């Protein structure tokens, strides 16, 4: 039932957002509705599909399973923060060049998951990378081009 709203400050992609949300409001809904960042998508709202993956203090989290009130003071990164103006992030560029997306709905989650793993483990091997990417669901691509894209991004980011 209706709850009292809590005021908090979220730092998303380096920008501060003053929001007032019910304690039950998820981080995903807050990003989308209160911060206007609709790039984070909701595919299942029970933590399986990973479409809502964002980085909280550089760790990938399912933003459908976190409440916004848990995230005050932490650095949140979303898909909107990847590109540098007109220039795509190497991971975005690789997804474009290797046809790593079709409908694009799961893509923000995969991009954030891949960003986190390639930043923390730039030398990750193919097999482990496949395991990591198996955390998220895609229904269009059959994953082959997602894996190819992330391999390409890994090689690009290392060089």
């Amino acid at each position, binding site marked *: *039932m*209706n709850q009292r709203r809590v005021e908090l400050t979220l730092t998303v992609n380096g920008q501060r957002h003053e929001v007032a949300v*019910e304690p*039950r*409001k998820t981080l995903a809904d807050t990003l*989308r*509705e209160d911060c206007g*960042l*609709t*790039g*984070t*998508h*909701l*595919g*299942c*709202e*029970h933590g*399986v*599909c990973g*479409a809502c993956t964002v980085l909280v203090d550089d760790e990938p989290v399912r933003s459908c399973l976190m409440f916004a009130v848990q995230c005050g003071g932490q650095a949140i990164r*979303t*898909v*909107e923060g*990847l*590109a540098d103006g007109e220039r*795509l992030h190497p991971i*975005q560029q690789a*997804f*474009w*060049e290797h*046809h790593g*997306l*079709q*409908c*694009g*709905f*799961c*893509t*923000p989650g995969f*991009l954030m998951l891949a960003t986190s793993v390639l930043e923390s483990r730039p030398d990750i091997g193919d097999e482990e990378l*496949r*395991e990591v*990417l*198996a*955390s*998220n*669901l*895609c*229904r*269009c*691509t*059959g*994953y*082959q*081009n*997602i*894996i190819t894209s992330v391999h390409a991004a890994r090689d690009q980011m290392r060089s």
Partner: protein
Amino acid sequence: MIGESVLRLEDQPLLRGEGRFVADINLPHQLHMRIVRSQVAHGTIESIDAAEALAVPGVAAVWTGADVAAIPPIDFRQVGADQMVPYRQPILAQDRVRYVGEPVAAVFAVDPYVAEDGAEAVVVEVSGLAPLLDAAGPLGDFDGRLDTEAYVFTEKTGDVDGAFGRAEHVLEADFSVGRHTGVPLECRGAVAVHHRSTGTLEFLGAAKVPFQNRDALARMLGLPPSGVVLREAHVGGGFGVRGELYPEDVLVALAALRLGRPVKWIEDRQEHLVAANHSRDQRYRLRVATDASGVVEGLEVEFVSDQGAYVRTHGATVATLAAAMLPGPYRIPNYRVTGRVRLSNKTPAGTYRAPGRYESTFVRERALDAVAAALGIDRAEIRRRNLIGSEEMPFERGVDALGTPVVYDSGQYEMMLDRVMAHIDYRALTDSLAERRANGELVGLGLGFFVEKSGLGPFAGSRIEVDPAGRVTVTTGEASVGQGFETVMAQICAETLAVDLDKVSVVHGQTDQMSYGMGAFASRATVMAGTATHAASVALRRRAIEVAAEMLEASPDDLELVDGAVRVVGSPTQAVSLGAIASSLGPASPHVQDRPGLVTEEWYTTSHMNYPYGLHAGVVALDPDTGSVGIERYVIAYDIGRAINPMLVEGQIVGGAAQGFGGALFEDFSYDEIGQPLVTTFMDYLMPTAAEMPELEILLSEDAPSPLNPLGVKGAGEGGTNACGAVIASAVDDALGRPGAVCSLPLTPERLHTLCRSGGAASRV
């Protein structure tokens, strides 16, 4: 540019998080709808008490069946029949509930969280009736008058009884395919607003078939079609399921009219898994008559399609496609099939990628394997003996599908078989698998040949307009479900107009931008809209040269279109750009003929589909302890006629295969004995992840262009999915050394484990 794997025009906003999916659309002062769904599989509604829900602060309205009793049930969009009319679904349950998940009430509130609070407070009393959960079993009662068999049909060609009378061998077999469906990553949703200023009802978040849904909504709400505008946004996957007109869509539109505020509805995943169309779920009985060499002379089939609780927009589409396409690439001169569309107390069913064909390819290829085993013939050889020869094209099957006779337009089936045999080195592969089996491994090879259908008519239109800046806009009434529609249309247009791809914009799925449209289904978009766009581009090029000839005072024969400008051959400085030509065609211009502007519109009509085809070959390794099936290797050969963008075609095939594997091994909507769905989350509905997918090998060919359109293109959407079930089953049989062991899908770990332990052949052949 046609034939090149150019990068997609669609991707930039999607990669940047700037896509505009329906959930991203918000309108001022909007209400949010939440559906109260039946928690009982079958029963009579005794009462619905909304008082407590209405008392929740922020709840604006609660509707039950009584509030919408005047709205007719949702009609068929395709393959309807009078007998099925009583089985259509009302937008809210009236007296009875017939499946868990059926909408019984709608709550409208200022916030989606509050709408859920309200929905939880609605009290629905249902007195239970016995649920019917086995559609192939005895018929049940639908409404006190009608039984649960909604539709029966028979198709036949040749002399089936004669063929069985002459047959050297007769085989009988039963097969079944389980219940699974598309499950796009984006759930359904809609936003509707009634603009009193213009009297227009605007419906945002349409997909797949916006024009047909506009007409249906207008009919149901008593509005003129011109007073209803549907708009497609980004669509997060379609697969046949998304974009059909569902009860929730009608409720959103009706609420926007009645409540005088914009209304938004976004489905959650749990709802999606019990409310959006399920698919497959067919049970077959076959008799196959062959001569001594394994040539199939006669085939008799009877099958039941479990339609779930209501007949939805697809009518009998899935069953008729299963029946018409079952004989596949084989000659089979004498064929009789009876299909039964029967209701049960499960979620209603509709089409899903390769509808009817995933099932009937499984059945046909299983039957061929069974004949091969019974007669001691190699599995590749028996297929070769039955394939329709290229000299027999066009081949009339003698049955109809979707209101048109099935006539295979072109095909080089044996050439494809040869290519795949060479690619996998069939002999060496089967020998090495036999050796591994001799060493105790459970490994095997499966083959699955199929014919697909694509390019369903009867029409598609395309309008191309150049603005004074030289920007080209292609407008069609067709739709995008995320497959790359914009890129493909732009490639076809840009090639003909000799402009850069990024000079072309593509508009689709907006019902106020085109007078007619159909949509994105039946692998039709590239074939139909592509052909129309090609024709419109050719007409525009002709018109541009005509006007440029007047402007340059030159003969059209001396002009060429290069880099977005018409110029005199051999004198490139004498040129006029497409933008300048467009500028010169204002309404008062002397260059204007029948209409101002540099614009053309062409319509492509056809009464026939065309027929791509393919062959899958897969190697599996079984783990008898865990019951898992590992796919070691998977090859898909597919003839597309002509590929506009091979990268996108391969993307369709690989993605389709993942869904095919899911249906073969993991995805299964099961129910308990009282009709409670056991699969309502992604913890239960298991779709393939990156860990389960093998590296696919795609052999794309263009051996058999379609003679039915000038580009020669056929559809790409469904060939990756079609034969996966058949091939996995065949490979598991081979691994177990027990032909006919697998008679039903999905082959979940539990079922494979049982099969491994059961030892002897489970074949009913």
